[in-house]
Structures are given as C-alpha cells and as structure tokens.
C-alpha cells in the first residue's frame, strides 16, 4: 500500500479486528499529527485505547456521553483536525444520531466513525448491545460513506483509506476476532469497489463483514459438491455501492444472494435490490440477514447459524435459488 502499512498474516492471526484498527490508527497517528481520538468510556473495548496510550494529548475520553463526544469531534474537525471516534455501533448510530446527523454529516465534516461490536458480534450482551440497524441508518445520512470490512486486514485497509478520503465515513467492525479471510493487504482495496473473490457464472453471493468468509466457504462447497460456479463479491462499501459490479453479476449469473449481519431492511440487501430494480433486469434474488426481529442471545457464530447467514444458510439459499424461476427480459444481451 502507498503509505507502507506493514500488516502481515501473523499480525492478523494474533490480533482481533479492533486491535488491528487500534494499531493502524497508531501508525497513521505517527505520520499525521492532525489525527485526534475519541471514545466514551469504551477506549479499551474499541481498542482506540492503543492510540490513547501512544498519543495521550491527542485523545479525549469524554466519559459516558456519546452526544457530547460527537459534538466535540465536530468542533475539532471544524478546526482542521481529523477526529477518529470509536464507540459501540449501537451508540454511535442511535444514541448520538442527532449529533452524527447534524453536527457531522450535514456539515460534511471530516470525522471518521469507527464503530465496533457491530451486528450480532456482541451476541451474549442481548439486543441492547446488538446492532442490526446501523447500515440502514447510516446509509441514509447524506455525505456519509459506509464501510463494513470483512476481517482485520480489510479493516486496516479501510481505516487507512478513510484517513485519505475527506468527509464523514462510518466503518463498522465486529467485537473480538473475525475469521481471517485476507492473507495480505495488497489486494487492491478501494472504497466503493467490490472485491471479486471467486469467479462464477451460475449465481452471485454478495456479502459484507463477517459474512464474506461464510460466502466463500459456501462457494467452495457449491463448486466441489454441486458443480455450481458461484461468484462471491466482498461488498465492503455499502455506500457508495458498486453498481457496476452488481449489474455485471446480474448479467453474468442472473441469480443473486445478499448476505449480511444486519436487518434485511435497509442494509446491503436493500442497497443491492435498489440497483437491480433500477436496472429493469430480471433476476432471481434473495436477501439473507436478520429477519426484522430482535435477535436471540448467544455466541456470534451460533447466531449467524440461527439466522442462516453462515455457510450452511447460504448453501441452502443458493440451492433453492438455483431452481427458482424468474422472468428474463428479451433484449438481455444488448444492454450490458
């Protein structure tokens, strides 16, 4: 990568996703004195505490006061500093949404919101700490870009890219360790550009976050057991969504599954559906996610299985979708 971040497989194996975030922020902070950090009594949990240790004068723990935190961050951004603000996803996008909306997004300020404990990754904490609404909420904030990295390495890439991209950015990561997917940082991460992980012409699985690993596992099984060629797209950027990759997938495979650790309303599935509906192309389509309910309690991986956003759930859906009928339009070939 351009700025020479040095993350390797070893780092990614040893560190949780948020620890990688904290480490990357320290590296960026070394080079860029304009970076300031914020947390609301969750410096340890979100791992922005690593930045705090290194740059105590540039870090502000505002106590359990998220609204104030985003307001102060807005004031600092107005003065030309670059705040990185970390708390749990549910507090960033709901407790302090008025400040995120009015103080940051409306004024198009250069504030990076790195929210941890996204989706059902804090599964045992119960629904007060689950966050399956944030993508829907943040996607509707004008000026704001929304990123859901697949693992630690992609988080490193996203955090670095966020620094170099002006304006408000929301990055959602999980609590604890993610199944490592990328083994090196140099795979061409670019905000707004999906990563094609497997080639395929029978069906496309579009995934984000922890579902990316599961999607690739499912694609491997489909290839080996069913002889089905599934394309997998890591759609790490939910906004701006990569329309080109979606339309190409519709054209090439005509069957699309989206999978996300989020309510099926308003997140990745909705964003993809909007692109497909707008294109006028016929296609068999299914959204996997949390079915508009508050989740049961449990370990993240168990919950992913329960809501069928894991490998088995994707497999089941793919096999059903392959047999599903749909109406293709006549001039299909003309309109790529």
């Amino acid at each position, binding site marked *: 990568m351009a700025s020479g971040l040095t993350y390797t497989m070893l780092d990614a194996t040893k560190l949780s996703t948020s620890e990688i975030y904290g480490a990357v922020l320290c590296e960026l902070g070394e080079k860029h004195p304009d970076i*300031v950090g914020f947390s609301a009594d969750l410096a340890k949990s979100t791992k922005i505490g690593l930045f705090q240790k290194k740059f105590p*004068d*540039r870090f*502000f723990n*505002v*106590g359990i*006061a998220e*609204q*104030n*935190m*985003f*307001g*102060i*961050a*807005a*004031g*600092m*951004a*107005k*003065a*030309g*500093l670059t705040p990185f603000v970390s708390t749990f996803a549910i507090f960033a996008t709901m407790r302090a949404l*008025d*400040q995120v909306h*009015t*103080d940051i997004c*409306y*004024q*198009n300020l250069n504030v990076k919101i790195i929210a941890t404990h996204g989706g059902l990754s804090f599964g045992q904490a119960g629904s007060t700490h689950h966050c399956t609404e944030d993508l829907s909420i943040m996607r509707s904030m004008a000026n704001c870009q929304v990123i859901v990295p697949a693992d630690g390495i992609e988080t490193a890439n996203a955090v670095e890219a966020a620094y170099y991209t002006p304006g408000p950015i929301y990055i959602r990561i999980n609590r604890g360790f993610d199944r490592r997917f990328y083994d090196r940082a140099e795979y061409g991460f670019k905000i707004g550009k999906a990563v094609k992980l497997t080639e395929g012409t029978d069906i496309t699985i579009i995934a984000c976050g922890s579902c990316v690993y599961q999607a690739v596992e499912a694609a491997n099984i489909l290839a080996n057991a069913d002889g089905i060629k599934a394309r997998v797209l890591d759609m790490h950027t939910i906004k701006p969504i990569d329309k080109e990759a979606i339309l190409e997938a519709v054209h090439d495979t005509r069957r699309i599954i989206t999978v996300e650790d989020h309510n099926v309303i308003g997140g990745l599935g909705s964003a993809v559906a909007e692109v497909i509906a707008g294109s006028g192309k016929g296609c068999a389509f299914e959204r996997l996610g949390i079915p508009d309910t508050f989740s049961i309690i449990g370990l993240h991986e168990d919950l992913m299985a329960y809501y069928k956003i894991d490998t088995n759930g994707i497999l089941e859906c793919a096999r059903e979708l392959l047999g599903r009928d749909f109406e293709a339009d006549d001039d299909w070939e003309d309109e790529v």
Partner: protein
Amino acid sequence: MPISVNERLILEKKAHELRLLCVNTVMWAGGGHIGGALSAMDILTILYYKYLNIDPKNPNWPDRDRFILSKGHIGVGFAPVLADKGYIDKELLKKYNHTGSDLAMHLDSLKVPGVDASTGSLGHGLSIAVGTALAARLLKKSHMTYCLLGDGECNEGSVWEAAMAASHYQVTNLVTFVDRNKCMIDGPTEEVMGLEPFAKKWEAFGFIVKAVDGHDFMQLSEAIDFALEEKSAPVVIIADTNKGCGVDFMEGDYKWHYGSLDSEKVEQAFESLEKYYQKRKGVSRNG
C-alpha cells in the same frame, strides 16, 4: 476595561438598528423566532461590535474567534447581524425563508459565510464550542470561542454533558452565555420544566457563574472581561433577558417565541422599539 458611556451609546444604537432589521426580516420571511432573537440581540451586538476578533472579508480566517449559536433557531436575529457586518448582502434578508434562499430559519454554515456551525437541533452547540476551544488549545492558537445557549435548551441532557467536559478539561478559552429569557415554546420555563436553581446547576458543574442583566451593556462587558481573564474554571454568563425585548406587545410573552408580522404589526413594533431605544439612551450607569 469597562466600556465607556460613549461606547455604550454606540452599542445601544447598533442594537436598535439590528432590532429594526430583525423585525423587518421576520416580516419578509413570513415568520420567525422573534422573541428569542430580540432577547439575545444585545448579547449578539456586544460580541459582534466589541469583542469578536473576526474579519468578514475572510470568514474562514483560521485565527478568528469562533461564535457558536447553540440556540440556532434565532436565525432572524443572527442573519441581520451577519448582513450588517458585511458577511452577506443585506438584500438577501428580503428573501429569507423563500424557496431556494440560502437563509433558512436555522442558518447553514456551508451556505452562510460567518456561521461557524449549523445548529438548530438544541443542545449541540456547547459540545461543538468545547471542540473548537480544545482544538485551539491543541493547535496552540490564542483565539476564543463564544457560545450562546437558550435557557429552555438547557433541558437537553447533552448541554450538561458538554458542561461536564468543559469543566473536566478546564476549557477557559471559551465564554458561554445563556439567554435567560424565561420562556420556551409551550410556556414559561419554570412551568414547562423548571431550571432553577439555575446558577447553582452551572456551579455544580464546575463553572463560575456571572449573573447579569442581559440588556445592560456595562454589565455584559464587565462579565465578558472577567471571563476572558479567568483561567481557573470556565465561565458562564447567565444573561437575564426579556423575551421580545423592546417590543411592548411581545415582551415577556412566551407566545412570541415564533410569530408573523403584518405591516401594521411592524409599524407598532417600530414605534415600540423607538421608545425603547430612547429609554435606553437615557439610562444612567446604575439605571
């Protein structure tokens, strides 16, 4: 140094002109938050014509003093000040609120030069002000941040989050005002949601409180001078004001939080403001 009698008279005249312009703006806009605009006008006047180190020709000058209008709904009072200072063309006031205008009830910092923060949702401004003040400290700049809150706004919990932080971080390059006009949309503040003992609340949050008559430039000036010198704790100036100050049929009436004015009402308001101005001119130091 306290302002001289002559300076006071100059400020009285300016505040009078701005009140007239505010009344006109409300008429042009078809309505506006006039009660709280008139109650805050003397605070805006003394800041913009005596204290703020700003350059209207260079609104983004990094070393300027910042002014965060936390009670963002008084755009009809703030925009006349910005127009008079030369940030915007006075003619724009005639199209206030009109479709396609850059001037809305709540002013947008990306559309209106001189507006340091887009506000309107209450309880945000003090946090932003703490942010600009802390940024100045980090960047080793000497400029000040001034923040004006409404009293009803202090129902918002986020105000007290910000107050706690201002005190915790010893943010003394910040001067906070509360326009204590004792009214909010649905009634008197003490009926809707009591704030008293208000000064004690701020003191409990670590502020030094200066309680002043918010329409007395001498008292305002003394309090601001004190706040600028004070480095042991942040200072809040609780300015006791009258809702609708200067317009007899509005004064002290919460129903004039927001209102419209036809040409007849504008005439009445002008007559009343003229009488008020004549009275202010005659006020002695202790009057």
